[in-house]
């Protein structure tokens, strides 16, 4: 299963800036890098490591569903992210306040994987979402 955020980032230029954005790396390159990271890299922590309280960083996000995938525009950071179907499901469930374990169980039902694999996938996806600023650690217990 390919999982994790297939994220790409691009900082929108200033209003009406007609200049060429030479300083930006290609969006495609960045997408490949992050997709590779999501597919091949080992999990950067156990599932239990992600039981920390966190909050969805949603106030500055514009979210659109496109053929089962999610595009998330982070207006504060000036970045756009593409989440594949699996990462989109994880992001949605976390946004709904679901427990990580419940999300992992749902993954086992939808994608016919065992629970340890699903836990690892959820943990890795959450780590990527954190690193991209789409969720934030917090001291607030969301219950």
């Amino acid at each position, binding site marked *: 299963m390919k999982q994790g955020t*297939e994220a*790409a980032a*691009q900082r*929108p*230029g*200033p*209003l*009406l*800036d*007609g*200049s*060429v*954005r*030479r300083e*930006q790396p*290609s*969006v*495609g390159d960045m*997408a490949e890098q992050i997709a590779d990271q999501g597919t091949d890299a080992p999990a950067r922590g156990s599932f239990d490591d992600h039981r920390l309280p966190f909050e969805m960083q949603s106030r500055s996000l*514009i979210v*659109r569903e*496109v*053929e089962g*995938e*999610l*595009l998330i*525009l982070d*207006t504060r950071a000036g970045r*756009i*992210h*593409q989440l594949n179907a699996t990462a989109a499901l994880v992001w949605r469930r976390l946004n709904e306040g679901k427990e990580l374990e419940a999300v992992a169980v749902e993954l086992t039902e939808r994608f016919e994987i065992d629970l340890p694999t699903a836990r690892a996938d959820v943990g890795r996806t959450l780590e990527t979402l954190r690193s991209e600023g789409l969720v934030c650690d917090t001291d607030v217990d969301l219950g």
Partner: protein
Amino acid sequence: MSTSGESGAPPFSLRYRVVERCVVVETRDPIVASLVRAVLGGFAPPPEDRRADIRYRLPPARRRAAPGAASPGPARLVHDMLRRLTVDLQRQRTDLLFLHSAVVARRGRAILLVGASGSGKSTTTWRLLHHGFEYLSDELAPVDVDAGSVHPYPRALALKLPLHAGQPPLPAGAVALVSTVHVPVASLPSAAPGQSRPVDAIVFVDRRTESSGADLRPLSAAEAGVRLYGGALNLLTHPNRGLDAVLRLARSVRCFALATADLQATADVLERLID
């Protein structure tokens, strides 16, 4: 460059219809005027009674290299005017989505070649024009997302030197402008339509030097949307920071990623795509 008035009418008043706006360039300098004609001569003139929407008054250019001189050389003056023009057009046409893209057409349908600087848009365009493609732009695609069409922006085609191996040679009439050579539309091997063309496909060009051939890969609307977002210039003039406009376009046309190291293979692939 100035938009304020000088006394008396300048001897050169050059008028062009650019993305349905009347652009007037005035100068007293014959060399500057000839450069402006070379780079903007592909745009049709507006009706004589049309008032200027955008006006540039270019000062006389200095003639010799003179560090610290108040006035830049003619090439720099025109180069800066072209950059300013792309910004002013975005201010005038907030209804359009401006993409950093080359545009060619075949059988009346347009292909957008989107990519960062150095990705090979202009080089690919120059080659395609020798294969029967029409020229709409090598730099800027003003897209009417609702109509699904792209306006022509037939500025002179700008090529970086030296030309790549296997490129068609430069024609007489090409002019140097700062770091590029511009081929006037009148010197191009194919026509430049004066009308909008429906967008048939969007191709994201990635020039590869470590491989061979040309590989065309279909993109999902989501991936195309992300890539289009990176290539759009006036996102903030559209609702929701341009995301919805970009996605409407990505959903409405075929989108591909093209990894290419071979201009001839690229031309063949794009011919098959539109034929």
